[in-house]
């Protein structure tokens, strides 16, 4: 495609910019650092109806204002996005959109993150000239878990077009026409697609809201951290929204190599659900028959003294970070335990037809490839524990184990975040931070190493696994423990095939593929 590679130069608001031929004026403006307000255009949705008329700009030689979202940039073109005509037109669109808008920002979940609110403040008038009664559409449920506030809707049809273009499921439609138009499910159809939650994210206003989030948090009350969805082996890049140390919402974060702008509903719930369960908040050691709390120093020294590898077995989780797995492997090597297994819960696979690389994958754990990278093997079911053996458990590997599991072990070391029934048999408990509470990396199905960042404070004195295991190794005569994730990653990268040359900083927020040495066997899909 020699045409596509051809560069053209145009001027946008006085800024000269060179772009590839075929770029739209709106995209070219982005290159020039000029934001053209828009509603119906969404970079991830291919159809561009140019219907919100918000992105109209003045182009020299064109008699009318043109929608920049579809108008192709031309060589030598002169574009003005802030000319008086363009500004007035935009101001007028805002006025039109607000005619029947309830202006219920004080109770709207989108307030603070709302494109209508932002542009209304930027360009709108203080007073509406609209003297008529507002239309009232009320609230509807478009899906089991999604509410539709019809009055707030600006009928940009992003949601309808997401379902049509990306999900490949025409469950949503525009009902009625003209000023009575609203969004609804097609008669007789349910909006039950596994990726339906994305319609809430693409909504530029507060018309579509997840029911489990409605009225829960204001935009400015939440902190946000970049994370990786732990729901399956795809490793969707996400934004974790936290309020009062609880995950209240997860949203997809753009990564064109992994999930584009999207994520599935299964994943959307996974971190929110991690708020639940009974947590291990302090180290515990079994002295005099009872598990007793201890300080980290006492506990680590005690474990270092008591732990030995006699006929030991290890069980790890595919839901913990590579760094946790790396230091667990180092600990096992130190005490002479070989092997180690992990289980992966299986589920139905769902493909997003408009972006087929993105699937809710059968492996419902984020780091199975990482566990294999650290030489743990996939197994079905829990291994039998030989009487008197050493048992090392990492993470939620025993979440469903019977309550007497490990009771016959000689030494049962539990490293994890939650107190599952079988943890009652442990000889020592080292309380770990969850995925949302620590920094770390996962390796997804195709061998992409991706960073996730700490979003929550840990309860009690729980700490990231890599942090306290590196100190335990120090007690056992190893190198001094690490306190920072980049050091933990660097220690891991030096000794692990596939991670050569990688650094925490170098991974950035888009991740990096494993070198050939560490490529998973199933990488090619």
């Amino acid at each position, binding site marked *: 495609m020699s045409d596509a590679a051809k560069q053209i130069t145009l001027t946008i608001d006085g800024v000269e910019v060179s772009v590839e031929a075929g770029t739209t004026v709106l995209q070219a403006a982005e290159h020039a650092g000029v934001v053209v307000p828009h509603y119906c255009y969404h970079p991830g949705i291919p159809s561009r*109806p*140019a*219907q*919100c*008329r*918000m992105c*109209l700009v003045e182009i020299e030689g064109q*008699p*009318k*204002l043109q*929608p920049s979202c*579809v108008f192709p940039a031309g060589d030598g073109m002169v574009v003005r996005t802030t000319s008086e005509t363009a500004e*007035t*037109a935009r101001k*007028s*669109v805002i006025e*039109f*959109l607000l*005619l*029947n808008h309830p202006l219920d920002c004080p109770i709207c979940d989108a307030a603070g993150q709302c494109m209508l609110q932002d542009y209304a403040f930027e360009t709108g008038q203080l007073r509406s*000239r*609209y*003297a*008529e009664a507002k239309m009232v559409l009320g609230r509807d449920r478009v899906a089991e878990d999604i509410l539709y506030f019809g009055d707030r809707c*600006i*009928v940009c*049809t992003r949601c309808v077009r997401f379902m049509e273009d990306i999900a490949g499921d025409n469950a949503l*439609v*525009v009902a*009625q*026409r*003209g*000023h*009575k*138009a609203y969004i609804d499910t097609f008669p007789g159809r349910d909006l039950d697609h596994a990726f339906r939650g994305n319609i809430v994210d693409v909504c530029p206003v507060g018309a579509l809201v997840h029911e489990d989030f409605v009225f829960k948090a204001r935009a400015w009350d939440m902190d946000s951290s970049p994370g990786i969805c732990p729901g399956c082996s795809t490793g969707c890049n996400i934004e974790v929204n936290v309020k009062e140390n609880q995950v209240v919402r997860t949203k997809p974060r753009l990564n064109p190599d992994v999930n584009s702008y999207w994520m599935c509903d299964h994943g959307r719930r996974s971190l929110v659900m991690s708020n639940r369960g009974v947590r291990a908040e302090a180290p515990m050691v079994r002295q005099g028959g009872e598990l007793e709390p201890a300080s980290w120093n006492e506990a680590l020294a005690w474990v270092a003294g008591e732990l030995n590898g006699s006929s030991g077995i290890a069980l790890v989780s595919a839901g913990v970070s590579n760094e946790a797995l790396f230091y667990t492997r180092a600990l096992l090597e130190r005490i002479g335990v070989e092997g180690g297994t992990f289980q992966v819960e299986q589920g139905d696979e769902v493909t997003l037809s408009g972006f087929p690389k993105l699937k809710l994958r059968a492996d419902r754990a984020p780091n199975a490839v990482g566990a294999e990278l650290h030489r743990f093997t996939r197994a079905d079911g829990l291994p039998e524990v030989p009487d008197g053996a050493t048992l090392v458990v990492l993470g939620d590997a025993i979440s469903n184990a019977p309550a007497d599991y490990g009771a016959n072990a000689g030494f049962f070391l539990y490293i994890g975040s939650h107190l599952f029934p079988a943890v009652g048999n442990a000889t020592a408990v080292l309380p770990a931070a969850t995925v949302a509470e620590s920094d770390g990396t996962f390796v997804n199905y195709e061998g992409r190493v991706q960073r996730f960042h700490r979003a929550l404070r840990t309860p009690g004195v729980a700490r990231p696994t890599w942090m306290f295991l590196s100190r335990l190794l120090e007690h056992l005569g190893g190198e001094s423990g690490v306190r920072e994730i980049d050091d933990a990653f660097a220690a891991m990268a030096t000794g692990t095939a596939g991670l050569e040359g990688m650094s925490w900083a170098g991974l950035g927020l888009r991740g990096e593929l494993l070198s050939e040495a560490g490529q998973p066997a199933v990488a090619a899909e």
Partner: protein
Amino acid sequence: MGYPYSHDLEVGTQLSRHFGDERARTLEGWKGLGGYATLPKALEMDPDAITEVVKNSGLRGRGGAGFPTGVKWSFMPKEPNGAHYLCCNADESEPGAFKDREILRWVPHLLIEGCLIAARAIRAEHVYIYVRGEFFPFSAILRDAVVEAYEGGYAGEDILGSGWSCDVTVHLGAGAYIAGEETGLMSSLMGGRAEPWIKPPFPAQSGAFGRPTTVNNVETLAAVPMIVAEGADWYRQWGTDKSPGTKLWCCSGHLERPGTYELPLGVNLRDVIYEVCGGAPNGKKIKAVIPGGSSTAMLTDDELDCSGCYEGMAEAGSALGTASPIVMNEDTSIVSAMRRIAQFYAHESCGQCVQCREGTSWTAKILHRIEVGEGTAEDLDTLYHLCVQMTGRTICPLADSVVFPLVSSLDKFKDEYEALIKR
């Protein structure tokens, strides 16, 4: 001839000659009246030669925009690589227009013949006749005619033994004004909502079902057989240089003899209203005329001396549109009439573009308020503002359609608005 009244101006064309003649509806009767004589000739012609004749005839689109038909056909790819389609736009919904309806119900075979000749010219393999949803009885007449055309070998496989095949499908819409806009028509034809799409892609590049498509009005296609039969010069004996031929005029409102009349383009509008239609009944004066269907600018009685053709009406500050003068006598409230027009467009807006979706309904509400005596002086400023913001800002011209009559009524009948506001 006109329908239901005849008029004195002698125009010898085929468009309306058989209006009112039941025989024209059946294949046998139509053949007896000289029908289907041109199709065999067209089948022997090179497709581009047909286009050339139509181009030379100067025939302009009768749907309102007046785009030269032959030029439109010439946009279609010459070397088909896949299907081409012809859409016949029979979604006649413009208030005031009732010309296509007469063609559908009196001379359906004329339309079918025109469609097939046009399909031949643009190398289409399928003709879709998109009929307005409310035209249920007329679509039944057309359907019967299509069945007969198939039986007679005029449509379908191997037409008249020429080896050329073309299907004709009658598609009944669900009743939306905007399905009469060509891209809206194709959206609806493809099973979607009748929502116009932004061009490009133009229909000749990617139209119905993503294939090159031409959309032509019923009256345009009905004029094609006579042009191909008699030649471009013959057709040019009527009309003006830029607007050749005859046109069906749909005259409604306060008239002595309202109806559909076939008149040459370039006829004086005053003659159409006073001579042909006999002026307003009961000796009333005429206050205003909307000359081209409800979406054109109003003219006052003083402004009626203009040439009834595309360029003449533009000169007069209005538009020929579908040549459908709506006449309002001196008792008419312009504000009420305008409110009714605005309500129509608010009801028919597809709802895509914000200016149209919100602007048409806001306009109608303001006009209603003024009409019932609750208007304010600012309302007129707001209306003017709306007129600016609804012009040329949207995908299709529906919003503009309110603006043309609205601005002209504000300019020419401001006193009526002000009187209601002051009351």
